[in-house]
């Protein structure tokens, strides 16, 4: 559990990205990894070792729900979907993240005092 967090960017970052991705469309684990990798232009490599514990955490918190279905490639997959609670949580997290980012940017910005 601890290890999973250490591999994370910062606490909650992975969860936030998962939720954001799922907001656009329901996806299964493998597709999630691929999607995040692609959209980040290969900058972010999600490890499966972190992904599955994170998904279980989200499931437990009721932020996502999972259903078995058949994928486009005709494969039995477990698709994760954002719940209402998850959407709300994502909003909060994103705004918190933006504030934090703004703060960090200001501190790091050169020349201003």
């Amino acid at each position, binding site marked *: *559990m601890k*290890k*999973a967090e250490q591999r994370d960017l910062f606490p909650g970052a992975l969860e936030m990205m998962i939720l954001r991705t799922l907001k656009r469309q329901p996806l*299964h*684990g*493998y597709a999630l990894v691929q999607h995040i990798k692609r959209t980040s232009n290969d900058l972010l490599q999600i*490890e*499966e*070792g972190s992904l*599955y*514990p994170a*998904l*279980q*955490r989200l*499931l*437990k918190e009721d932020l996502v729900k*999972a259903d*078995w279905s058949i994928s486009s*490639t005709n*494969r*039995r*997959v*477990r698709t994760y979907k954002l719940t209402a609670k998850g959407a709300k949580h994502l909003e909060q997290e994103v705004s918190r993240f933006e504030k934090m980012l703004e703060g960090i940017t200001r501190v790091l910005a050169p020349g201003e005092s």
Partner: protein
Amino acid sequence: MMWLKQLFSRRPLYNDLSEEINEHLEEKIEELVATGMSRKEAAAAARREFGNVTLTEEDSRTVWRWPSIENFLMDLRYGLRMLRKSPGFSTAAVLTLALGIGANTAIFGLVDSAFLRGLPFREPERLVHIWTIEADDDVHTPTPVQYQAVRNDTKSFEQVAAEGWADYFYSADGSLTENLPGSLVTPNWFSTLGVRPLLGRNFREEEQRAGQDGVVILSYDFWQTRFHADPGTIGQQIVLNRRPVTVVGVLPISSSSKYGAKVFAPLLLNSYASQGNVRAGKMRVQIVARLKPGVTLAQARSEVEVIGDQFKSASALADRSKRLIVEDFGEMFRHPGPTVENAQRGLWMTAVASGVVLLIACANVASLLLARGVKRHREVAVRTALGSSRGRMIRQLLTESTLLFLLGGAVALIVTRWCQEIITKVASDMDSGAYLQVDARVFIVSLAVSLLSAFGFGMIPAWHATRVNLNESLKDSAPNTAGGSRSRRLRNSLVAGQVALGMVLLVGFGLLLRSFLYVESSPIGYDPRNVLTATIRLPATRYSAPPDRDHLMQEATEQVRSMPGVESVGIADSLPMQGADSVRLRIEVPTPKAAPVEQEIFFVSISPEYFSTLKIPMLAGRDFRETDSRQGGPVAIVNQTFAKRYFPGTSPIGSHIAFVDSPATWKEIVGVVSDFRQRNPEEDLRPLAYFPVAQTVPGRWSLTIRVRAANDMGNVAAAFSKQLQPVDPQLYWEMGSMSQQIHDSESLTLRRPVITLLASFGGLAMVLVIVGVFGVTSYSVAERTREIGIRVALGAARQEIAGLVFRESLMVTFAGLAVGTFCAFAMTRFFPTEGVGWSGSGIFLYGVSRTDNLTYFGATALLTSVVVAASWAPARRAMRVDPMVALRHE
């Protein structure tokens, strides 16, 4: 309720998870195959990229549970399974620990009851004692009249209670009677102290009236020893002082142990003189009072002081007092006398010894665990390879060893509970306040000891077992070599440590045992064999006139003398080993011009035949004669030490001594008697004076009767008791023997329990060392089977192989002995070399030096032979190794 649902529906969750991860891998593989890889390559690549599947699954599952608790439960289950799988190892380890922990639990119980625990009374800070200061400026216990005044005329106290002292004589079967110290208490005494009986009830108010007082409450130990702890004792009639009384209660052990009395009976204030014992010439009672809430000690003091004023000129001389004082109740228990100080010494010694036993036991288990750790190297390596962290592994191994220690602690508690009575009995000789009862405190301490030693000694093997080199350990051909030599070194140092600790324990025990034997056999200066004693205490209400006492002595002597087999009969007011009273004496020194010396001197009143009965030779002058009676001139005999100290170079015969408080009566010294021990077998000789018993007529004295040797001295004593009965049917004769006196002397009584406890600890330690050496040597032989096989195949003789085994264990032993000798030597610096207080008795080195060769040599020899004996079986096994079988293992 969500968590509850989760708890029961985890299985499908986990199944989903596994399937999902599987599908994930499949999808990845397919994608890779699509890029042109072979299926096999793709599978490997996918797995590599995915990482540790099991770990990921495990981590994901962790989300759904309370990881620390569940891991712990899992470890626990696993641990229990491991223990069940090797019952031999588990039993050995648990028993070993039970011995070590049990010894410590027991000693803690004793130390706790004797010194650590608070007073066993309700709110003891509100309790006070009231004393009187008399004309001699000494603090005394007050008189019954003073008690009544305090009780009736004060407002500071919730309750005021009194306790008097009485002798009880109890006979279970009507033959020889047993003398029991008794307390006479006002009915409110127990409620004032806040003591509730363990069984039955307290005294009732009406039971302090004559005729209704036929009730007693028994002390815990008396109930245990004489009534076998039978709850049916309540309501039973027993005969005390020839009077049937009903047992109405039994006191709990905690409050029984604070009071020496075995029997508690109602105090009848107006007939106390016929009931109780005289103390310091008067009937006295101890007053205990409980302050009302909010009343301070100072307030109570001023109130009691006013009451005290009326006794400054009391009409009855007995009740005259300068002042009544109030003192904090705990004061009396805070200033223990030399006896308690001695007991503390003894208990600390045994506490250290029990600690040593525990360390040996722990070292034993640690080396057993180490050996197992090496066997389980593969298991650890496999689990590490599968992604288990070292911390996780250590936690699991620690859980396993903690389980062992806790089981050991549990068995220890059960055994301690079994031995509770016997240990209490042994220790109560040392300190009547020390007892063992397995209660919450003892339980918590044994739990704490178990856990602490589990962490301390479980950590070593756990740390060690988890130091794996994966590459080495997983290779099939080298199952045991990885870490083997390191583990062996560690095991060997644990064995050496055990031997060293054993050495310390044995040397300590040996020195004390030798001292005890020296004390027991030290020349006492008289011949105690075949001398019986009959002791009498005269009641205060009768025999107050000297002629009556004189008459009783004469008649008793005549009665005894008329019995067949009696060689001679003497009388003394204090027997040897009972000590003596002291008095300030004025000694007329030989040089005429010098002023007489005044000195506090011990003295004993004796009859003319006393010295010859005990076969003590006169060195000069004469013995007392029948003519040295009340009518004859006052005479005295002194011992050799007296003569040497006050009359160096001359003879004291013809000189005079006198009591400082009656200086006109000069007593002529008529003889010098050979020295003999009056208080303890090992005491320093002191100056002693002897006076004719006919001239002092004491209220308590003993007949000493030399008889022809008989097989059953008990029968002879019973016959004397019967013969003496008609002299005065109301008196009690306490029968005993001179050898019994020595056995019961203060120093032997103090030393015996320490010796007994140390001997049992020493025995335990030896058993543990045997088990430890046997285990480690056996293991080491098993480990070296291949080596031995090769040696045999190359032509080594069987003896050489045995030598190989013995050499290793002896090397370890000698290292341990060297360290142990050094530590033992350091430890003996803490051994006391002299007694405590004026009585000079105690537990100290007597007749042996700290570096006593025999003790060190004996301990060395014993430990060496123990190690050789323990290595015997493994050595034989090594000799029988069949090279064919050993090498086939390859």
